């Protein structure tokens, strides 16, 4: 049974219980954050690096966490920013345009050893990679993490209205892609 987030934060701020609290926090959120990251960057190795960076930032920043937002939205925010930074850095390194990046991520999905083009779940994965990064984040947080728009607004620093519109467009695009594939 996981400790409540508030209790975790309090224990982390105490020197004697800091490490235990941190370990508990990691165990509580490691899988959720991992899959959120992996949906964005596709490959396990990249997801592993970003996940580690995310938790290191949590270690450094949790001591000054002001608790004006929920802990898990704060964690998702760090993880999302790390993903977007990673994707942006890759774009600059290879100096490619968006279409090439989308194709690159789609190819990474298809390169998975378990990839099955006939299965809808795999088609959905390929379709999601066709979306622009921020639209992809919105869709993933809503579709896979069941996140309310209000919490998503805190994670992405975007208005609820804009998020709803973004999710609407994303879902339509994915549906059309699957139908045409």
């Amino acid at each position, binding site marked *: 049974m996981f400790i409540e987030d508030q209790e975790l934060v309090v224990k982390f701020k105490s020197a004697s219980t800091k490490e235990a609290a941190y370990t508990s926090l990691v165990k509580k959120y490691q899988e959720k954050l991992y899959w959120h990251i992996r949906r964005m960057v596709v490959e*396990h190795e990249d997801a592993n690096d970003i996940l580690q960076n995310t938790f290191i930032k949590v270690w450094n920043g949790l001591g000054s966490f002001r608790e004006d937002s929920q802990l898990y939205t704060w964690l998702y925010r760090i993880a999302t920013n790390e993903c977007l930074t990673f994707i942006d850095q890759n774009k600059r390194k290879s100096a490619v345009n968006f279409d090439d990046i989308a194709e690159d991520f789609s190819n990474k999905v298809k390169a998975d050893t378990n990839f099955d083009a006939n299965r809808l779940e795999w088609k959905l994965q390929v379709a999601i990679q066709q979306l622009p990064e921020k639209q992809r984040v919105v869709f993933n947080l809503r579709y896979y993490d069941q996140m309310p728009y209000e919490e998503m607004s805190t994670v992405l620093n975007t208005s609820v209205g804009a998020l709803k519109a973004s999710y609407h467009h994303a879902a339509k695009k994915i549906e059309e892609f699957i139908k045409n594939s």
Partner: protein
Amino acid sequence: MNQQNTILEELKSIAPSIASINNKMPQQLPDGYFDSFAQKILVLAKQQSYTEEDDNELNEIAPLLNRISRKQLQSLPQGYFESFNVDLPKQQSIVVKMPLIRKWMIYASASIVAGILVTAGFLYTDKSNLSFDYEQNSKINITTAMSNLSEDELVNYLNSTSSLNIIHATIDADLIDESDGDFENIEDDEMLQYLIENNLKSNKKAS
């Protein structure tokens, strides 16, 4: 559960075909990936973060500072770094004033070299005027030329000092017969006559 149903209904209204897809991730995780992940990340986080000593130090000096976010609050003008440019100062060549003495020495050296070059050039170009055309003069028949000269012309020529020097230089020692007597008492006219006659003889022998 309520949230899940809400999202499902929302998706059915936007894209019904997606709503029916199983939303479990098809990708696999490496076996045992999360077994010791928390412990590993704790070790890594402690290594990469600032040390606990730094933490304790600030806690002792000013604990309030540890609780304040280190985020920069000041705002930047829009697009500041996009048009950021460093105006490097133009490198000016350093001018070193030459000492006066050194300047005059250089001028003097230059003038000497120029003088040498001019003199050499002058001498080289004027050399042809001093050359003696041996080839042309060797073709002249001296006997004929001498016979064409008048006696007065010969006397005048022989009376000049330079002429006597040339004559002395050209006298063939063999032509002077010691048995001819004492030369000190011989008159100039007689000497001249003697030289002419002997010169003619030597030309005849040569031919």
